[in-house]
């Protein structure tokens, strides 16, 4: 693969990782946060939501700073899995209001 | 009081500018000594704190804090425009 093409694919890869996959990962992490934050459920929900935009922005910055597009992808995927896993376990054991 | 806070902020930013090599040179036509730089820097930060205190004294903590950021932007802009005008003068060109 020519270097220019590889570079373009790498950038597009990062964009796909950052924007849609990043949104999914952020959402799952925010769900986990909403479950884990102590105190009143309504307040925990609001707080997690307030933080979400900072989390998403930080994730996007990371994806473009990561040493490779592949690494960025797997880290984002892992974060999504982490968020999803925690959320699922928490709901399965504690239920929702 | 708010006007005073603004003027203090302007003076503070001017002092901070003077603590920097480039602007010190443009304004005072000489290289700053390290102790001058430190003095201007301390005066500048002190001025910012003073302007914050003046603003909060007038407006209360919440409103005062918000207003202070606005005053800072205005003060910094005024200092920046003045500095750039001075630096652009033919006499300043080397």
């Amino acid at each position, binding site marked *: 693969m020519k270097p220019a093409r590889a570079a373009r694919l790498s950038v597009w890869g990062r964009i796909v990782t950052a924007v849609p996959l990043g949104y999914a990962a952020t959402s799952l992490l925010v769900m986990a946060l909403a479950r884990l934050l102590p105190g009143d*459920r309504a307040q925990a929900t609001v*707080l997690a939501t307030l933080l979400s*935009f900072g989390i998403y922005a930080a994730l*996007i910055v990371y994806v473009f700073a990561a040493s490779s597009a592949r690494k960025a992808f797997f880290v984002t995927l892992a974060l999504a899995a982490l968020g999803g896993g925690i959320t699922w376990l928490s709901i399965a054991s504690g239920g929702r209001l | 009081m708010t006007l005073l806070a603004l003027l203090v902020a302007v003076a503070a930013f001017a002092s901070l500018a003077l603590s920097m090599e480039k602007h010190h040179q443009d304004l005072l036509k000489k290289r700053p000594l390290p102790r001058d730089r430190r003095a201007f820097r301390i005066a500048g930060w002190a001025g910012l704190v003073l302007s914050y205190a003046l603003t909060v004294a007038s407006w209360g903590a919440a409103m005062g804090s*918000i*207003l202070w950021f*606005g005053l800072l*932007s205005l003060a910094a802009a005024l200092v*920046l425009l003045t500095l750039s005008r001075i630096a*652009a003068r033919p006499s300043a060109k080397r």
Partner: protein
Amino acid sequence: MSAGFRQSQSSLHTWSGLIVGWVLFTIFLMGTVSYWREDINRWMRPELAGAERPEQVVAGAVAYLRDKAPDAKNWFISVPGKHEAGASLFWQPRPVEGQPPRRGRRDTQALVGADGQPLHARDTRGGEFFYRFHFDLHYVPVIWARWFVGFCAMAMLVAIISGVITHKKIFKDFFTFRREKGQRTWLDGHNATAVLALPFHLMITYTGLVTLMTLYMPWAAVANYSQTDKLFDALFPSAGEVVRAEKPAPLVDLVPLMRDARARWGGREIGTIRVAEPGDAAARVTITASQTDSISVRTPSIAYSGATGRVIWQSDGAQSAAEAAGVMIGLHAGRYAPDLLRWLYFLSGIGGTVMVGSGLVLWTVKRREKLPDPIRPHFGFRLVERLNIGFVAGLPLAMTGYLWANRLLPVEMEGRADWEIHAMFLVWGAALLAGFLRPAKRAWVEQFALTGAALIALPLHDLAGGRELIGAGMAGDMRMVAMNLTLLVLGGAFLLMAQKVHRYRPKAKRARKVPKAPEAQAMLEAAE
């Protein structure tokens, strides 16, 4: 901080900024002028007299509603602020069996004065149009618009963060603004407007996202609640549904209730009044405090029985995170801001608009230096350069066109409110087209100059018309005087910009590695 990290952030900054730059420029400009929307509302309804006492206006509103919609399910009255004339009100008609509820119909709203009569002013969306546009856009479904605007806001947030990371010498360069140095000047201008009001830009972008967070990030609610209604009830407790008693009872006078509410709140102004089931024994009057007296938009409410005037329910204060959210939204909207702070908001917003605009121009200035063939730049460059004109110069021109349409369209014209808006888009379309067809530099100058002249001509036109405006000035309506002065100053600023662009001659470049053909150089100069 590694060079590679900084470089990656620099590219991220440029691309995230450019892709949504034109939309962000629009959002910033529309949002910034919206800090004066009440004044723009008044300016666009010059027939109206100044503000009247809220209690009298509410009494008039109730009289009107009693006459017009005595059996409505709900009345909603917006109590006028200090600088507004008349109460804007709407009602929810009794739902008819089998018919779906009607929403947002023009025939269930009115603007009413203290005498209980609808205020006669030209039909216009006023400053509200600019305000709604900056998140709802126009001509498109509102949900699409909000998602698109949210996407752009996220890009802005990323651009701010990556911009700060990229700007290595952010403090060393804090006061640097090198004039007449071409690309350096644009860069310094972009940096200066960005850095000097950085707290504002960061705040406005983040809080803008928070304002629509239930749309953008509903997942936390999904994680904790099986139905989001439960979260809503937990966060915004109310006195519950009003169940009609089917027993008529006259509605109490609202003015004593207003006074009671204000006394309980330590003198805060009233924002809105809702009357549920007016004329019924189960009627309820819910009075909510105005957003002008606290930073948070979550303001207290008190519910009174509409038949007896007794207090039924009072809201509690919002708790930690909910209060934080309310404060964040309040910071964005700035409704709490007294005039001095409002001016600072406005100036910071202008700074933000200039930041985005200068960023867009900087992109072309930087790329122009690297063009292999300056006469026939590649399509991407041409597109950006020409769209820049249509937006950065064209949008202000279009917005001025909206104000002019308000003055020129016949007052009795059918649908004139919509046509004022169409006029704005027509001017904008023409500007965009001109941006593509005219030589670039000339297009900039023409549109800036036209905007400047048009802005200055507005108060002059009003003066020449004699009319209400002079009357308002004589009555000591300083706000309208200030509004007109602002139009004059802004107009002057645009004329100044036109002059600067007109006089701009790019400095002779240093010898390039690939020397330009003499004909190419001559053609370049002729194009300016």
